[in-house]
């Protein structure tokens, strides 16, 4: 019996490995290996090891001429505040939406949730920023990110809080605690699992955002990573061949921060998801 179970397990792992090989390993391998090849070799887009190692050359070129560090700084400058603002303000609003019975609150909630699925409009957004005098700045872009991505965190958190009984809050309230105190001491800590899930989704979505960045960030010195990648990849007029080796190096460097964050956070996230954070 034991042997049968172990055999099945082995087969299962084997099948999984094959699937993951094709599904994930190959594209990632292609990416990594070609980012270490010189121009000519990389253009062949083959899976073999580099005949000539250009790892250092390619990556240092990207960091210098691709302005990687600058773009990295810009991305951080936008994503970190966006994350902080959405998590805190979103959790606050979610609590209110979960507990309040007022009609207006419901309207506000529905509008907020709609923002997840309805497309945001570029041109009028640019106008607004222009009027406020912050068009083209990272601050303006941050505000837009905060406003358009608030929805998913609010949605997840509201669903979660609704499923939590009110007892704790009510007894704390009877004990004389103010609303803010209840929020900080009780609600927020309780919602951490679902907020973590929301954070992951948020980080991925904002870090990789490209469409709005193109319109809202003026000048290449304010470009975030995806935008810098795009500018880098399309600045190849002088080249007789598309510089795949450099583009791939850029892609790797752009993805590394997220991978690192994920590796750190994943232990908390998956259990969080499993504990039924996705409700309502």
């Amino acid at each position, binding site marked *: 019996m034991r042997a049968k179970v172990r055999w099945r397990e082995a087969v299962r*792992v084997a099948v999984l490995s094959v699937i*993951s090989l094709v*599904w994930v390993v190959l594209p990632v391998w292609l990416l990594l290996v070609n980012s270490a090849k010189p121009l000519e070799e990389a253009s*062949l*887009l*083959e*899976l073999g090891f580099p005949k000539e190692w250009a790892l250092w050359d390619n990556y240092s070129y990207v960091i210098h001429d691709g302005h990687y560090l600058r773009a990295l700084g810009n991305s951080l400058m936008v994503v970190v505040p966006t994350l902080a*603002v959405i998590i805190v*303000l979103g959790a*606050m*609003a979610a609590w*209110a939406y979960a*507990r*309040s*019975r*007022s009609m207006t609150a419901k309207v506000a909630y529905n*509008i907020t949730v709609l*923002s*997840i*699925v*309805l*497309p*945001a*409009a*570029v*041109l*009028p*957004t640019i*106008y*607004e920023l222009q009027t406020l005098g912050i068009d083209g700045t990272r601050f303006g872009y941050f*505000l837009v990110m*905060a*406003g*358009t991505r*608030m*929805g998913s965190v*609010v949605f997840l958190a509201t669903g979660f809080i609704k499923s939590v009984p009110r007892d704790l809050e009510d007894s704390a309230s009877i004990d004389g605690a103010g609303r803010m105190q209840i*929020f900080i001491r009780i609600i927020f800590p309780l919602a951490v699992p679902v907020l973590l899930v929301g954070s992951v989704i948020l980080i*991925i979505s904002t870090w*990789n955002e*490209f*469409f709005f960045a193109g319109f809202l960030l003026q000048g290449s010195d304010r470009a975030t*990573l*995806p935008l810098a*990648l795009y500018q880098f990849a399309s600045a190849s007029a002088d080249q007789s061949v598309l510089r795949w080796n450099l583009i*791939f190096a850029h*892609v790797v460097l752009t*993805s590394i921060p*997220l991978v690192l964050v*994920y590796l750190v956070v*994943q232990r908390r*996230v*998956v259990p969080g*998801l*499993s*504990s*039924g954070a*996705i*409700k*309502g």
Partner: protein
Amino acid sequence: MAVRESARRRQAGWWPFILPAFALVAAFFAAPFVLNLRFAFTDWSGYSDIIAFNGLENFRSLIEQDILWQAVKVTLLYAVSAMLVQNVFSLSMALVLQRSTRINGFFRSFFFLPVLIAPVAAGYIWSAILAPAGPLNKAIALVVPGFDYAWLGHGHSALASLAFVDAWKWSGLITLVYIAGLNNIPESLTEAAMIDGANAWQRFWRVRFRLLAPAFTFTVVVTMLGAINAFDLVAATTRGGPGTSTTVLNIAMFNQYGSGFFGTASSLSLVVTVLVVVLGLPLIAYLRRREIEA
């Protein structure tokens, strides 16, 4: 009276909590959205400063040029294909990786990697893989010599390829959602079914799939709507080509902007909204009913 008063005060007390978040949403999502609706019915263009209401002229022009319906068709095909591939793959993976073992944890994280890569970057990677002389064709050439089909160069395969890449990108996340959903189903129910003599297949369909309804709602809606809003991936690969075979609505809108036709661009934006509402709401309602029945 006193109860009513304090109830009222309680309600009013929520506003400081709601306002900051809602202000952001109102200012940077709702307001531009409303404005856009207005522009959809004007002849606004870069050529002139005069913005005049022109009724349904924008839509007529877009239909006449075969831009509107083509974009809707392409978008829907893309959305449905991506949604199917994603959900079938993810659900299967979720079933396989359901238990929280070390090995499973490793594979779960592994499949999550594509989620982390920027869509733009994914576009570049897959352009390389699907190139006529790229690795995929080379692999196929082992079986079919001289195979050099241009996946992204022919309408139908380009669209199918893009839908697949979209699915590839997000499956890792959807798998996790399904795992959560599966783990939420009490063991007792499946055991009861087993005692009743149901085999594995029946156990799955009758019990687990039914109870997966909430997760199912979430994933189907999210993948569908995400695909309707697709842009990044297409922009980094085919840019809507060849011809208009991969021109999803957002790409069509982008093209209109580029030509200075802001009115028609807003009209296309409106179409996306309508599509989301028309498809999303009934879909959500239907799936919700299933949830309740389960």
